[in-house]
């Protein structure tokens, strides 16, 4: 689910880049220095996850894991995804440099939303945390597909048609991501539960 170079009109590409830059700055300011190792680990997970391809009919789709990154990083997720996308763009030729802003919004916003949802609804019990983690993983991918349709609609495509296609193509990804997120959350609950307690602060901590 990457938008390629030259698909979006120039105005949309510039606008999404500006909005992404704003979010990136916001995310950067909310990333404490002590969290950097965790951010680096999840950035590399996000970077590598895109190489896991799931065969789907004639084409294949790959994992995205914005939901998992968002749930585990909170506000820092946007930073992690930005770095991961830049490297994917440069090394794997996913998307393109001019579409980077749009791709960043495409993955970053669902990640932030997943972080917010996970922070507010994770509750105390293990079962609930695992369930909410799975919902974040699957839901973020669905949200991503809808954003993709919205962005492509700005380039003159039919929104409903693209949305249907994007959602249909990502049904297996949604399921796998929900499963992967649930597995990671349950594993972390056993091994290092404090990793799941990320404060999702909207106000800047100075």
């Amino acid at each position, binding site marked *: 689910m990457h938008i390629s170079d030259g698909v979006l009109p120039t105005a949309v590409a510039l606008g999404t880049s500006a909005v992404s830059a704003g979010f990136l700055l916001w995310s950067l300011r909310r990333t404490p220095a002590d969290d950097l*190792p965790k951010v*680096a680990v999840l*950035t*590399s997970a996000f970077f590598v996850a895109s190489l896991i391809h799931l065969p789907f009919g004639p084409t294949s789709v790959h994992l995205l894991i914005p939901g998992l990154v968002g749930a585990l990083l909170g506000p820092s997720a946007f930073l992690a995804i930005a*770095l991961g996308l830049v490297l994917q763009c440069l*090394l*794997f030729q996913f998307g393109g440099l001019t579409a980077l802003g749009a791709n960043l919004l495409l993955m970053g916003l669902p990640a932030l939303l997943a972080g917010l949802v996970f922070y507010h609804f994770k509750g105390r019990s293990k079962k609930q945390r695992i369930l909410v983690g799975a919902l974040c993983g699957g839901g973020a991918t669905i949200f991503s597909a809808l954003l993709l349709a919205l962005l492509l609609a700005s380039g003159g495509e039919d929104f409903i048609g693209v949305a249907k296609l994007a959602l249909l193509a990502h049904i297996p990804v949604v399921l796998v991501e929900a499963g992967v997120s649930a597995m990671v959350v349950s594993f972390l609950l056993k091994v290092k539960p404090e990793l799941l307690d990320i404060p999702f602060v909207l106000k800047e901590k100075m």
Partner: protein
Amino acid sequence: MTVFRRVLCLVLLVFCLLLAGQPTFAEESPAQPELLQQQNQQLHQQLRDARREIARLKAEGSAPGWKDVVTGLGFIFGLSGVVMMVNARRR
């Protein structure tokens, strides 16, 4: 006499032409389309194979290899290391 000779020559010429032209028409006209079709089919098959090969090579070439993955991971950890170092010095 000259008129008769001329006519005879003309008739002979026409006969020769017919004799020369007929067998080629008679022999090649049914065989040529079939042959062409066969060659066409062979060429099409070869072209299709070549195209498939090109597509395969293209897919192979564009797929990121291990080198790219390791490069990316190095970048991520290297950058985070630099930032952590800067942070540590500031303190």
